[in-house]
């Protein structure tokens, strides 16, 4: 961000590396991993705000029984687009942004392996996002079949469904290119001495995530392409009227969808694994088991998909298999949580904002993990499937999980990106506000789900009114906290306001990113650095 904006003012400071284009060309033709990382992060922050506004539309409607704000058709559009935008527009690109910034810095590489492909994978997102968001203005409004796009409801959608499908194809292509880039960078461009088992966990989790992405994005592309040909070219893959099978769509979708869930959480594990040791001033406990646990989660993610489909009417053996496999995931996930706590144990901890978000992550994410375990039990899932319990569960893992880890990562690395420190008071306000409002919003949803309130409902029986009102109040509070984050933390940092950051602002932080100045110069590690034995410092 202002890492480089700065250079307009102090052109002489980094004369040796100032060969890049200026103005809009610098961003449109960007090939520098830091610039592209910045673009990704700003893009996903924008999408987070758009998706958040849609969520507030949903919560405004659900504030009271009866329809006051939107009609049921628009309500379904809001839930669908909130899901699609948050998953494909906010969380996934944000992690790619983190990877772009941090992977080359952490492994001592000069840049990403394929700089121009990197540019292309970012700029593909813009038309895709415009098409996705623009679908609200198409005849019949935005897609309203839920973010899972279940057939045959998708066959009833208007032309915006095609726009949505096309947008997802493009985003998928972007993700695959981004993943190839990350894999090739990590496998080929590590500085001498940076062996795989010395690599920071953020790189490890991203390496595994990138393989997951390459494996499953084409599966999604297949599912939505079949939907497209069913809609327009007379095929009947999922249309029962022609002998197709709507449940087959769900199998294909969730074969993508479940690994997708881990795509959205594994890099978060990586960020937290960097931050906990830094603020405990103690090395990460069980590095090797962390790598193995991450790999096991990735492998298991391919054999659990049908736990999303217990109510479709699977045979006994199907329900049992998917129940057992899903419950197994609790084990490697548990290992990770234990490792983080063991890292904190007998450390010398301080609680700056990155650490607060990381500890908050462990605490609240684990609640989402436990509700996941409860949902894995097929007979219990029969009661809870498609109720607000599920909504609570996945917001505990995606908001308190992925989003909190990204906030932690932002506070941890933004001094390196921008060259200025955030205000600790503001960071703490952001953390506590977010934590409290998050729980006010989503905790009552567990009760709504247990009481049987189905999700994706524009209106509900009046017995559910109080908890819905509470959730809506929390949601608006949570939304405001994120506006606060942008206005009082991100924008000042981008304008270079704040205390100047030192090269290593965190006493206990380790890794090559802290071996370069803050803000990180435009080019880093142009010649491969010589590393010490643990590959955390540059020697000579």
């Amino acid at each position, binding site marked *: 961000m202002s890492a480089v904006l700065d250079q307009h003012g102090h052109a002489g400071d980094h004369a040796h590396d100032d060969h890049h284009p200026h103005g809009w060309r610098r961003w449109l033709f960007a090939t520098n991993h830091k610039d592209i990382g910045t673009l990704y992060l700003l893009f996903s922050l924008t999408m987070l705000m758009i998706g958040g506004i849609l969520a507030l539309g949903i919560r405004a409607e659900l504030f009271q*029984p*009866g329809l006051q704000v939107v009609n*049921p058709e628009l309500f*379904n559009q809001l839930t669908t687009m909130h899901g699609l935008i948050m998953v494909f527009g906010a969380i996934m690109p944000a992690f790619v942004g983190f990877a772009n910034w941090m992977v080359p810095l952490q492994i001592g590489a000069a840049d990403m392996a394929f700089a121009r492909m990197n540019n292309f994978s970012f700029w593909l997102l813009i038309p895709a996002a415009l098409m996705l968001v623009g679908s609200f203005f198409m005849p019949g409004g935005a897609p*309203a*079949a*839920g973010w899972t796009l*279940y057939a*045959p*409801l998708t066959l009833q959608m208007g032309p915006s469904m095609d726009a949505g499908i096309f947008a997802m194809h493009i985003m998928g292509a972007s993700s695959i290119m981004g993943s190839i880039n990350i894999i090739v960078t990590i496998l080929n461009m590590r500085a001498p001495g940076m062996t795989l088992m010395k690599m920071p966990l953020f790189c490890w989790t991203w390496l595994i995530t990138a393989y997951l992405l390459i494996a499953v994005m084409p599966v999604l592309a297949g599912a939505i392409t079949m939907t497209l040909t069913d*809609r327009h070219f007379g095929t009947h893959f999922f249309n*029962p009227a022609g002998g*197709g099978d*709507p449940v087959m769509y769900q199998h294909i979708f969730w074969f993508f969808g479940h690994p997708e869930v881990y795509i959205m959480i594994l890099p978060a594990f990586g960020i937290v694994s960097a931050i906990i040791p830094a603020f*405990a001033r*103690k090395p*990460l*406990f*069980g*590095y090797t088991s962390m790598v193995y646990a991450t790999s096991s989660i990735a492998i298991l993610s391919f054999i659990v998909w049908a736990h999303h489909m217990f*109510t*479709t*009417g699977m045979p*006994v053996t199907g329900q049992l298999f998917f*129940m057992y496999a899903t419950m197994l995931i609790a*084990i490697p996930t548990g*290992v990770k949580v234990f490792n983080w*706590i063991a890292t904190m*144990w007998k*450390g*010398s*901890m*301080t*609680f700056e904002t990155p650490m607060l978000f990381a500890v908050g992550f462990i*605490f609240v994410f*684990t609640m989402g993990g436990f509700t996941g*375990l*409860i949902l894995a*039990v*097929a007979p*219990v899932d*029969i*009661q809870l*499937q*498609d*109720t607000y319990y599920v909504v609570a569960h996945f917001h505990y893992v995606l908001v308190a999980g992925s989003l909190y880890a990204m906030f932690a990562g932002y506070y941890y690395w933004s001094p390196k990106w921008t060259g200025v420190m955030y205000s600790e008071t503001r960071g703490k306000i952001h953390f506590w506000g977010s934590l409290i409002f998050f729980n006010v919003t989503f905790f009552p949803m567990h*009760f709504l789900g247990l*009481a*049987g309130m*189905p999700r*994706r*409902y*524009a*209106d*509900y029986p*009046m*017995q559910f*009114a*109080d908890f819905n009102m509470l959730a809506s109040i929390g949601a608006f509070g949570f939304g405001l906290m994120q506006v606060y984050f942008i206005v009082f933390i991100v924008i000042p940092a981008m304008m270079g306001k704040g205390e100047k950051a030192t090269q290593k602002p965190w006493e*206990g932080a380790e890794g090559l990113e802290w071996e370069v100045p803050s803000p990180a110069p435009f080019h880093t590690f142009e010649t491969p650095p010589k590393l010490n034995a643990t590959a955390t410092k540059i020697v000579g």
Partner: protein
Amino acid sequence: MMNSIDALRRRALRAGLALSMLAATPLTWAVNDLPGGPAVNQLDLHPAVTSIAAEQQWLHWFMLIICTVIFIAVFGVMFYSVFKHRKSKGAKPANFHESTTVEIVWTIVPFLIVIAMALPATKVVVAMKDTTNADLTIKATGYQWKWGYDYLKGEGEGIAFLSTLDNTHRLASDSGKPAPMDDYLLKVDNPLVVPVDKKVRIITTANDVIHAWMVPSLGVKQDAIPGFVRDTWFRAQKTGDYYGQCAELCGKEHAYMPIHVKVLSQEDYAAWVADKQKALAAKAEDPSKVWALPELLAKGEQVYAANCAACHQANGKGMGPIKPLDASAVVLDADKAKQIAILLNGAANGAMPAWKQLSDTDIAAVITYTKNSWSNTTGQIVQPADIVAARQ
């Protein structure tokens, strides 16, 4: 173990209830618990009325208690560390970073716990999926947006009817200010009636998109998939009214297709069956009857309110992508066949569903009604015989 879990559960609920009442007092709507449906600020699953629902509830508490204990233990350790091992308290960092023994222990122990959780669950899965030897088999068909019930086998065989949300509730929802009602959005015109203590097998399917037939008190949720049949079962142990709602997104009116199961004693059920069969015989309409315009209009208005008004609106103006019928070219067209074809086959890729499941008389009446209501004054009459002809 079951007893102690139950006791814990009651205690937890009482504490939770007191808390929620405290928190919610200022917001309370003038609404009461709906027996068999949701209670005000309900915290737990519905009171079980079938053995499966009881097992599900037991499993849920069993899981919740184990998870809570682990959660408290693990985070007890973490928060102890958070408060003790602080730099501000002079904590010096230790330097350990692995211990094979500890790591093996905390992999094996969760594994054993997970197995302990899976065992009782397995038993319930097997029981839940056993739909054999049913006393009564009923097909539940999901339509956009209502349920159709066909009694296929057992006492009451041959009974068939549609079950739709009471339209006043739908209008109350639209008004934005529904008056307090205990059964808001749960009241239907024709509940599904079943006998107590009999194994009822529900076969689900759908006419258009996927729906899901859910009744929490009975421990049942089963997707209804177009083109396919699936089944589930329940044996209600208590008479009463039990409520549920569609649980799979099925389009615009997803929130407005509730399920109401009325469980009657064996005698009451037999009486209901006799009544119903008599009524059905009496109602069997003669499709060759020639109707007069006012009769058809009166009938058509009812059919319209029950089936069409949700989308096309009571004033016939439609909404958003829903086409208006008022002043519609198709409705006004002198060629009646056009509108009949749309009703029988649907249009716009199913956005306008096919209505061929309605009787000839109902279809004739509702077409006649639309051709002669609002600003439409064609004077055309469509007779049931026209529908019979069009169906061929």
